[in-house]
């Protein structure tokens, strides 16, 4: 079966005031359907740049990247928005929820951009929030929730369009250990349910939840190893 993510010799160079910054200097790897991969590296290693390219938010300067067999170059702007909406779910370090909007409306956001009817949006959002154990918080605003809860809302939002891949950028970076573990439990469970997950982190402990760990250093892949014993805790459902 064709890998869902194919990265071949991807380079990314930024030009700032005639100073060239080589963020990625030729990166190649694949991610198969249903895999849980962690991309590790210190800050400035180029991992965020890589995530932007993987998430169709940015173009590679050189090399080939295909998601589900499609390259970013074959889409125009509205099509690209559509691909991000349908194929990709994002989870960010800062949660990136709309602070003045209720939990359920935050989760519904991708559905709204998909043009789905309001009644259907509500139903799907409730199911997604159930999955992350927040169905009792529908009408709260993010500021009324703890950091861990906010990140769970963000995960529900990432799940709602049943994307091909979930990209998580330091999802535990702003959380205490306990909430972080809860979030990682949810990712493990989603992986068990068959979701493809690409996680970016600088914490070795967090990376060890994944099946495979790719190490990035100075814009190059330092190692790409299978993790034979991913952390699996008995999942405490709430």
């Amino acid at each position, binding site marked *: 079966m064709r890998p869902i993510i194919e990265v071949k010799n991807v380079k990314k160079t930024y030009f700032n005031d005639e100073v060239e910054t080589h963020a990625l200097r030729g990166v190649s790897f694949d991610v198969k359907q249903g895999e849980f991969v962690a991309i590790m590296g210190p800050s400035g290693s180029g991992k965020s740049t890589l995530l932007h390219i993987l998430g169709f*938010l940015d173009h590679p300067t050189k090399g080939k990247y295909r998601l589900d067999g499609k390259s970013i170059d074959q889409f125009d*702007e509205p099509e690209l928005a559509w691909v991000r*909406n*349908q194929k990709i779910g994002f989870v*960010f370090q800062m949660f*990136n929820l709309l602070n003045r909007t209720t939990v359920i409306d935050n989760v519904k*956001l991708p559905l709204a951009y*998909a043009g789905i009817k*309001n009644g259907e949006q509500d139903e799907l959002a409730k199911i997604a929030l159930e999955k992350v154990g927040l169905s009792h918080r529908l009408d709260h605003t993010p500021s009324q929730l703890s950091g861990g809860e906010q990140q769970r809302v963000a995960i529900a939002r990432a799940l709602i*369009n049943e994307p091909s891949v979930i990209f998580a950028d330091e999802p535990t970076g702003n959380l205490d250990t306990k909430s972080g573990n809860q979030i990682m439990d949810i990712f493990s469970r989603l992986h068990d349910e068959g979701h493809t997950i690409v996680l970016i982190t600088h914490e070795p402990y967090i990376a060890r939840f994944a099946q495979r760990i790719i190490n990035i250093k100075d814009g190059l892949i330092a190692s790409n190893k299978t993790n034979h014993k991913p952390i699996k805790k008995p999942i405490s459902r709430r």
Partner: protein
Amino acid sequence: MRFRDTLKTSLTGLKTNKMQSALTILGIVISIAAIIMIMSIGAGAQDLILQEISGFGSDIIVIRPGKEPKGPSDIGDTLFSDSLTKKDIEALKKKSNVPELEHIVPGVLVPGSVSYEGETYRPTIFGYDAEFIGSALNIYPEEGQYFTEQDIEMNAKVVVIGSKVKEELFGSAEALGEYIKIKGKNFKVVAILPQKGQVSFFNVDEVVLLPYTTAQSQLLGIDYFQEVLVIATSPEAVEKTVRDIELTLREMHNITDPEDDDFYVLTMEGTVQQIKNILQSLTILLSSVVAIALVVGGIGVMNIMLVSVTERTHEIGLRKAVGATNQDILLQFLLESVSLTVIGGAVGIIIGGSLSMIVTIVLQKFFALNWIFTIPLISIILGLSVAAAVGVVFGLYPARKASQKSPIEALRFE
């Protein structure tokens, strides 16, 4: 994204910044309220004036000598033109010339003052047919009788005076039957008019009426008229009668080209139209002044929208990451600014309407004017569409700026 969802998003954006939104639209509110007031009060004034005029009679035709004044400098022509004479009147009186003429009254204006035993007063002195004026305006003497057709034929030296004129000259003493002096000649007071104030174009209280024949022969030494009033048999006959009058007078004056006319004909309808035009240009003028305020308000909206776009850079990035197209973002911010200005417009209409209502009540209660409260539908439509247009024009640039943000830059922005 479905339009309804976009609209909801935009309105939520406004609700969360209530105070800011309210202050931003204040300029729009004031401008639209001003437009509504101008148009409402303009319409009220027009109604009032038209009421007064149509009370005067829509079957009246006025013939004046000279060329129709197109500007202030032309008015002299009319006052000193001698083209309308007794011969013209005789011709117009013939049924074969103007069949639907019911009544014809020539008139002259006498400059000067009146005096009685050392008291002097400067009223408006008309040489006219008093009976006719009385019946046209529905005014009848308080004391005495109007001078008659016979008095006019005989150049009788009689006058009818207004109440103010009587008071100035006679005080509380008896005036009827006394003689007053105009240009050194004695005229017998035969009637005194009741106190009426301003009626139509002149103040009844400050008027002195005398037979036009007397005014021509005794006071002015002229044989022409400054104004001729014609009554048609019915308001419907006015148009045809005007044409008959023009044809007759051209024949009398040997004129072939209407361009060379040495007289002009006015009808109430024409006068009404003129007043409407004047009020309309006034309304437009005032509205354009308000338009400047509206532009200032629009700039305020643009400013606040630009701030909002910068403040919400992160939100824009997130929305793009989860599938918003540039167009979605553009529409969201554009709808926000348009909602802002349309709400401002609606509030302005309510405030403007309320203020006009208050003005109406004040005018009715304290000035006893027969003023009718109207808010022209067009002003509401205009107010709302102008507000919406301001929202589009001044919201477009910030909205475009928002939509062009790159999702990564936007997500990185703290």
